[in-house]
C-alpha cells in the first residue's frame, strides 16, 4: 500500500496507474449519482447542485435529469 502522496500518483507500473484512473472515474461517477440524487431529494435545485459541483446547470442536468426525472 503506497504511503506518500508521490506514491499515490506514481504507482510503479503504468498498467496499475492507468487501471486506477478507470476505477477512480467509476467511483467518482457512483458518488456523483448518489449525491446528486440525495441533494435533489433533500430539495436542492439543479442550479444549487451545479454550483456545489462547480459545473454548469446544463452539464449536471444533461448527466442526471433523465435518470432522476421522478425524484
Amino acid at each position, binding site marked *: 500500500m503506497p*504511503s506518500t502522496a508521490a506514491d499515490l500518483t506514481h504507482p510503479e507500473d503504468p498498467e496499475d496507474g492507468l487501471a486506477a484512473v*478507470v476505477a*477512480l472515474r467509476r467511483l467518482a461517477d*457512483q458518488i456523483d449519482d*448518489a449525491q446528486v440524487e440525495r441533494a435533489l431529494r433533500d430539495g436542492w435545485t439543479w442550479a444549487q447542485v451545479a454550483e456545489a459541483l462547480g459545473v454548469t446547470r446544463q452539464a449536471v442536468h444533461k448527466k442526471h435529469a433523465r435518470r432522476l426525472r421522478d425524484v
Partner: protein
Amino acid sequence: MFERFVGEARQVALQSHSIAAGLGASSVEAEHLLVSLAGTQHRAGAALREAGLEPQELHAAIQRDFERVLAEVGIDARGVDVSSNCRRTKLGWGASAKRSLERAVEEAKRRGDRKIGCEHILLGLLRAEHGTVPRLLAAEGIDRDELTGRL
C-alpha cells in the same frame, strides 16, 4: 454492426447491457460481454465455466479487481459495492466492448467464417492486452491458449 452476428451472439451483446446496468456501470464494457458470454449455453460459455469463470465468479472477480486497483493508489474501496446505484436505464457501448466486438469481426474474417458467433466474441475478448478483462483472466489464473483450445 450486428447484422452478421448469429442469434446467440446478438443475445450475448444484448444481455451485456443488463449486466452492465446491474453492476452500476455507466457504459457497457468488455467485462460485461465476458459475464454475458459465461452465461450462455454456447460452447464458448461452457469453456469459460469449465475454466471456473461462472457468471457469479466473474461478478466477484470484477469487485476484487476494483478493490485491488484502487488499493494500488492508496484507496481502500473495500465495502464499496460496485453494483450500487444501478439506476441508469440506457447504457451506451464503451470503448473496450466496441474494440472486442471489432476484434470478434476480425477473428471471424481471419478464420474465413461469414457469420459472427459467440466463439468469435470470446476470441475477440481474449485478444485484449490491457484493461479489466486481461487483468481478470490473469487474476483467475486463466491460460488463454487452453481456453481457446476448448472452443
